[in-house]
């Protein structure tokens, strides 16, 4: 694997984003708008906002990054640049690594902005260390990149790729413990939620919002989320076919 080709790809993706300021603005602002909306919904239920605000801090970036990444790679397929890259010395993991790096970097900026707003002006109260909260949000965004790249490996059209969002992301939202605590779910569903990455992200966020000394548990959750992200990336590279019909 060549670091220079991976970096060149990351740089290219970031340059593409730079020429598209509206997407940058939307990706930075949408999670902020949603967190603000949540704060307004729970204007008279501060405790509920504290309970839901942190997990959603992980969920919102997951959605925006998933959509942008999956569509970005699909666009490469549709316009033929992917075919051209697959005929070049660029490796499949180098290509996906470049995507993960660039969107990961962008997601870091996004996480910092939305965490700053939510913990500052919106007044979300968390017990655990704030730095870990930001780190977890970034890792979830990386997971979004990995899942997005994986999803687009199975999509041939724009219609297909957007359908992967309700298919891959929404079941995780239902099962992650935000709506019903995971340990109160039927055992079958609990077992399913155990193998879904968002469950660990939300567990981590719950630890952070509820416990003071949650560092160790959260670090474990972060490691699991990162492992899922890396797994999705490798699986995405493995399922990306060089030869197509």
């Amino acid at each position, binding site marked *: 694997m060549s670091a220079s080709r991976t970096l*060149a790809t990351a740089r290219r993706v970031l340059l593409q984003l730079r*020429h598209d300021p509206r997407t940058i603005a939307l990706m930075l602002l949408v999670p902020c708008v949603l967190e603000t909306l949540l704060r307004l919904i729970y204007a008279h239920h501060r405790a509920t906002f504290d309970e839901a605000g942190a997990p959603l801090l992980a969920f919102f970036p997951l959605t925006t990054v998933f959509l942008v990444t999956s569509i970005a790679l699909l666009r490469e397929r549709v*316009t*033929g640049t992917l*075919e*051209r*890259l697959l005929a070049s010395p660029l490796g499949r993991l180098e290509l996906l690594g470049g995507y993960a790096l660039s969107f990961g970097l962008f997601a870091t900026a996004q996480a910092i902005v939305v965490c700053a707003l939510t913990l500052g002006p919106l007044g979300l109260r968390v017990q655990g260390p704030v730095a870990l909260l930001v780190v977890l949000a970034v890792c979830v965004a990386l997971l979004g990149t990995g899942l997005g790249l994986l999803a687009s490996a199975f999509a041939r059209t724009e219609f297909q790729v957007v359908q992967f969002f309700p298919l891959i992301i929404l079941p995780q939202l239902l099962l992650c413990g935000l709506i019903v605590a995971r340990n109160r779910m039927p055992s079958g569903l609990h077992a399913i939620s155990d193998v879904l990455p968002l469950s660990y992200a939300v567990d981590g966020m719950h630890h952070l919002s509820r416990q003071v000394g949650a560092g160790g548990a959260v670090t474990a959750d972060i490691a699991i989320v990162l492992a899922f992200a890396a797994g999705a990336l490798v699986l995405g590279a493995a399922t990306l076919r*060089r030869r197509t019909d």
Partner: protein
Amino acid sequence: MTAQSIAAGRTDSPSVASSMDAVRFRDVTVQRGGRAVLHHVDASFSAGRVTGLFGPSGSGKSTLIRAIAGVQSNVHGTITVLGERPGSMAVRRVLGYMTQSPSVYEDLTVAENVRYFASIRGGEIGDVLERVQLSSHANQLVRNLSGGQRARVSLAAALVGRPRLLLLDEPTVGLDPLLRRDLWNLFGELAGEGAALLVSSHVLDEARRCDEVILVREGRIIAQLTPAELSVRTGTEDLDEAFIRLIEQR
């Protein structure tokens, strides 16, 4: 154009396959969507010359090019590219591939596009932009360019890094005659520098600009010969007519 001027074209090199083949097909059949789009193709072309791939739309030109580039699935038979398998790292390092539709990033500038491909395969972008006559557009976004200009950005991305093998799928389509002439001159120069070029087109008139042409129809190779041989064999200088006579001769 007279028969003499066609014969005066580059006809010094023999059309018979030599041991110096850059690319060789041996009994290659390609299936797409359950039907064969290339049937038992045997062909080869060598370095140092411009080989034209001519045939109507849907004849299998792009499939043949994709098979050499190593991105076509369901290929049966043997294809050897510079002594290696298509799609192998050794081939990908020295291959410049221009797909049929301009496959470049329209949200990047011309220079950013070519620089990205240079960072993958090596090479300088200044020289390449000059060769495709885009130096003055280097900092323009591709999405603001005309179709013909986009095609040249795509060509520049294939040329960067001086690849030994160039697969150009309809590089001159939609370009004005002056620019077409310049590009065919450029292809001749690149061949002179030792590259192997396979250039597809459906405009038979452009066959005159090739050292050798491969004529394809309905997934089969009808003939592989020099432009001069084509007019001798068919008794006409009109290339469209020559193509028709070749088909009727079979």
